């Protein structure tokens, strides 16, 4: 393809091809600090392309392709090319990765142990992980957490954090502007701005962490903590996993082990500060 970026996030080596320069330039900037291995062949391929040659210039719209595609995915305008790239990269991992049990969850680590936050979009799991990652924690990822099936360790997938709507200002106020991507307005998911993880989080992206606490955050409503049984955590995590079924028994044993060994809580919080305080309290208890 005309333009190409090569990006390694955690264990996944991507190649992203594009008919336009701009999404590639945006990606190169967001991922400039990530380790590069030019000799390593890609595990996953993403293509951003124009459906018809003239649509590269005339009302350019970005179609998402690659190893895996969603049949009815709508194209995005070129101004949202970066979002298209990110969605396509996530899709390849969600549908194609088989080495780990993939949880749709954010995670942060401290002292080699991981706090995993699983929830739908809107639960605030990205924002909480991003804010924790600016403090005493290592950000492992805001979208996927990878569980190694044999030993049960969590591995990081620290792509650029996708901040949405109110979270943009909340986080932007605390970080150097050089760590933020362009603001994408009016996307199907609202406003989006990417945050480059801290250099130490990127440097440590291959280091495993032992899961120590599972939280299922829910944004909005009075602060509340509800212990969650093994069965419910199991069910929720199978729903939060994109490759549980494909992994067969390896996925089953990884997940039963995770919910047995790691305490799980549902957490309701009215604002990020409260959410973080609740998470820190539960962490202290769980790791005491």
């Amino acid at each position, binding site marked *: 393809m005309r333009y190409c970026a090569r990006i390694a996030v955690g264990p996944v080596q991507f190649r992203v091809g594009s008919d336009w320069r701009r999404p590639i330039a945006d990606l190169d900037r967001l991922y400039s600090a990530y380790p590069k291995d030019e000799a390593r062949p890609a595990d996953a391929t993403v293509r951003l392309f124009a459906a018809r040659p003239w649509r590269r210039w005339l009302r350019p719209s970005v179609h998402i392709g690659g190893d895996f595609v969603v049949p009815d995915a709508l194209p995005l305008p070129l101004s949202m090319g970066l979002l298209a790239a990110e969605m396509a990269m996530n899709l390849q991992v969600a549908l194609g990765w088989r080495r780990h049990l993939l949880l749709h969850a954010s995670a942060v680590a401290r002292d080699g142990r991981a706090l995993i936050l699983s929830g739908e979009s809107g639960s605030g799991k990205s924002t909480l992980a991003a804010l924790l990652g600016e403090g005493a924690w290592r950000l492992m990822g805001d979208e996927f957490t990878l569980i190694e099936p044999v030993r049960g360790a969590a591995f990081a997938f620290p792509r650029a954090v996708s901040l949405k709507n109110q979270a943009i200002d909340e986080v932007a106020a605390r970080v150097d502007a050089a760590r933020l991507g362009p603001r994408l307005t009016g996307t199907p998911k609202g406003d989006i701005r990417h945050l480059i993880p801290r250099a130490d989080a990127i440097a440590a992206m291959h280091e495993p962490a032992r899961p120590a606490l599972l939280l299922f955050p829910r944004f909005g409503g009075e602060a509340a903590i509800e212990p969650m*049984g093994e*069965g419910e955590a199991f069910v929720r995590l199978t729903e939060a996993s994109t490759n549980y079924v494909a992994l067969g*028994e390896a996925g089953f*044993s990884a997940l039963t082990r995770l919910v047995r060994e790691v305490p799980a809580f549902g957490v309701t919080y009215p604002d990020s500060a409260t959410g973080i305080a609740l998470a820190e309290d539960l962490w202290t208890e769980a790791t005491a």
Partner: protein
Amino acid sequence: MTDRVFRAAPADALCIEPLGAITAIFDRRSMQTHLVAPPLPEMLALMGEGPCDAALLTKRLEAAFDLGDTGDVRERVAERLDELAAMGLVTAA
């Protein structure tokens, strides 16, 4: 109506993990996970290796657990057996 006769999955085909209130059963033949509640795991365990119908299984359940006076147990056991058959955990013998 006579009860249908079933046979349980061979024990080595299943990985059964109690997780609090529910039990997760992984079937190595189908690669499927079934989340079940009592009395399904107990029924599976009591079926043993031989052929078994609702009447026989009801007798075994009554011997193993104090079911008290709970109406037509056999009919409900027959229904649960059909559920297990739909999951593939038991098969018509």
